[in-house]
């Protein structure tokens, strides 16, 4: 069965043109770009090109692009660099809904003498900029806020937040792993100091990421080693993956409009059909400032893992914020931060689309889903009594 893949915030398919571009660099042009022979030198030229392609997508200059192994490495590097270059400052500002790549780092640093402010979000997943402003102090070494949330797709006002940081001379980092390629980003116009992105979220392979480092920003490397990446990240360049990311970045730029028209249209159609055909459903997170490909829907009184596994019978791929799927016993920290009631949080499903989805797939899912929810609700001890209450209200 061909998968109906709607889990693109987890990872994406490597684009065919991306795969084609990278393959020769495994077995044909396998030279080390640092080598003195032209066999390696020709690869260096391609790495340079990839750097330009990524920079173009971000509105950055090529020397501001540092290739890393993944988004998590970029996030770790950004935070640790800021702290080691500002040893006198002991305060970090972040939010409650960050990816574990930031949360775990901050939680660890909190045990090492740093003070961490985790900004709350409202019921729609939005950040309060006034509260943000109040959190900034002369002791703040770095601010790290995600550009768009991986679970709900809610977009934070990063441009404004970065400007407020700049006014106070505080380093600003954003985890833009979910935003890059889905919404336009222009770092030439936004005073962001550091930005993380991940290749496999935009149709490049897994195992390649980027840390954008604004020119002039004080930096201290996380991965020590050779002189690669101008001494900012040791380790032999993952040349096939870097070249792949370059092509993927160019492709993302080309597809940006499709993403915000066609993909958004598919998402809206999926969302609206589900909301109108299945009772007691609700979208989590604000619907306006949101990634065009993401919808997070709660199906009240049922548990998410059950929905996922029943959809799996039709090869429909999505994810859930329920406790049972996370390996932990509590539902997603993002939904909890938003104050989503347990009856809703456990039954949340995230669909995240890409340019490879089509209308037939949307219809396939919206046809299969209602009987799945009905079956699970038929088993749920909460369904009958609560539904009656809701009907009266």
């Amino acid at each position, binding site marked *: 069965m061909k998968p109906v893949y709607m889990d693109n915030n987890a990872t994406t398919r490597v684009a065919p043109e991306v795969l084609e571009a990278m393959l020769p660099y495994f077995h044909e042009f396998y030279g080390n770009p640092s080598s003195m022979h032209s066999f390696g030198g020709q690869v260096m030229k391609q790495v340079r090109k990839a750097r330009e392609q990524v920079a173009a997508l971000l509105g950055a200059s090529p020397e501001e692009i540092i290739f890393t192994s993944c988004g998590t490495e970029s996030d770790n590097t950004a935070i640790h660099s800021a702290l080691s270059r500002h040893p006198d400052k002991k305060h970090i500002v972040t939010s409650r809904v960050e990816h574990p790549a930031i949360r775990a780092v901050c939680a660890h640093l909190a045990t090492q003498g740093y003070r961490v402010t985790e900004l709350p979000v409202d019921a729609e997943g939005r950040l309060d900029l006034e509260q943000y402003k109040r959190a900034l102090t002369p002791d703040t070494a770095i601010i790290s806020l995600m550009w768009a949330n991986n679970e709900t797709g809610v977009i934070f006002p990063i441009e404004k937040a970065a400007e407020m940081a700049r006014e106070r001379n505080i380093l600003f980092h954003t985890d833009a792993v979910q935003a890059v390629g889905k919404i336009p980003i222009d770092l030439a116009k936004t005073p962001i100091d550091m930005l993380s992105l991940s290749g496999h979220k935009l149709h490049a392979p897994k195992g390649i990421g980027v840390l954008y480092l604004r020119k002039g920003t004080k930096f201290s490397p996380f991965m020590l080693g050779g002189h690669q990446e101008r001494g900012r990240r040791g380790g032999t360049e993952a040349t096939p993956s870097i070249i792949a990311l370059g092509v993927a970045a160019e492709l993302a730029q080309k597809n940006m409009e499709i993403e915000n028209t066609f993909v958004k249209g598919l998402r809206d159609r999926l969302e609206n059909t589900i909301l109108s055909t299945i009772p007691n459903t609700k979208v989590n997170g604000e619907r306006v400032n949101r990634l065009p490909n993401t919808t997070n829907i709660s199906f009240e*009184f*049922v*548990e*998410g*893992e*059950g929905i996922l*596994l*029943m959809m799996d*019978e039709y090869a429909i791929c999505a994810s859930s914020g*329920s*406790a*049972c*799927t996370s*390996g*932990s*016993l*509590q*539902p997603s920290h993002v939904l909890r931060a938003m104050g989503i009631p*347990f*009856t809703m949080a*456990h039954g949340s499903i995230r669909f995240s689309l890409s340019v490879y989805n089509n209308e037939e797939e949307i219809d396939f899912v919206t046809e299969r889903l209602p009987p799945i929810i009905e079956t699970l609700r*038929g*088993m*749920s*001890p*909460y369904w009958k009594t609560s539904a009656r209450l809701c009907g009266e209200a």
Partner: protein
Amino acid sequence: MWDYTDKVKDHFLNPRNVGEIEDADGVAEVGSIACGDALKFTFKLDEKGKIREAKFKTFGCASAIASASAMTEMIKGMTVEEAAKVTNQDIANYLGGLPEEKMHCSVLGREALEKAISFYKGAPIRAEEDKIVCECFGVTEKEIERAVRENRLTSVEEVTNYTKAGGGCGNCHPLIQEIIDRVLAQPGSSPAARPKLSNVKKIKLIEETLEREIRPALKHDGGDIELVDVVGNRVMVATRGACSSCQASNQTLKNFVEVKLRELVWPELVVEEVSA
């Protein structure tokens, strides 16, 4: 993705006995929506006192649905006394096993069964002196004690897998550890019931094990190992030959030497490398 057995998948996709018996003899509701799984269970006896009908409704993941379905199938035809002997491990076994992290689903099934039987007998449901240990998931001391005893649990993580206790804020971890220590110290509980080992005997056993089990395997790869000292449970060794220059020797020490020594000599041994 969870590694569910075909039987779990079958009981999830085609659950048996879903519903609620109107004039049931035994009724129980366990778990809560806040905790992520809840189970409503009812049963009805026939004129011979055997369980004729058992039905459930559940809010929970695939393994919660499968565990409830399995439990209702297992007890049909049993007397109440027979059903009372069904353990969570029996439910898990019936399903061909459950992932460790999902064992609490089988415990929920057993709890519902037990509570419904208490209801039938008119017995009080929860002893008064029982106190809540895990505030996040409302798990009591007795529930944890029982899970530790019946499933021979030895770590907080295992207790969390089986009862959910400790899976939230984590504040109760020291209390859970105390309960584990207490239960395992009781006579008859198997992991702690080993005879005490004198230091002389311990060193002798370590030497024998190194000689018989470990050195031949290392020599096969051009390496060797030498016992330097034993202090309490710390086994100090030096590596020789190929091992001393091998990048992976630390892993060999932990994953092979330590594992063997723990298995054959004493479960708490820790192997450390010293340069000698």
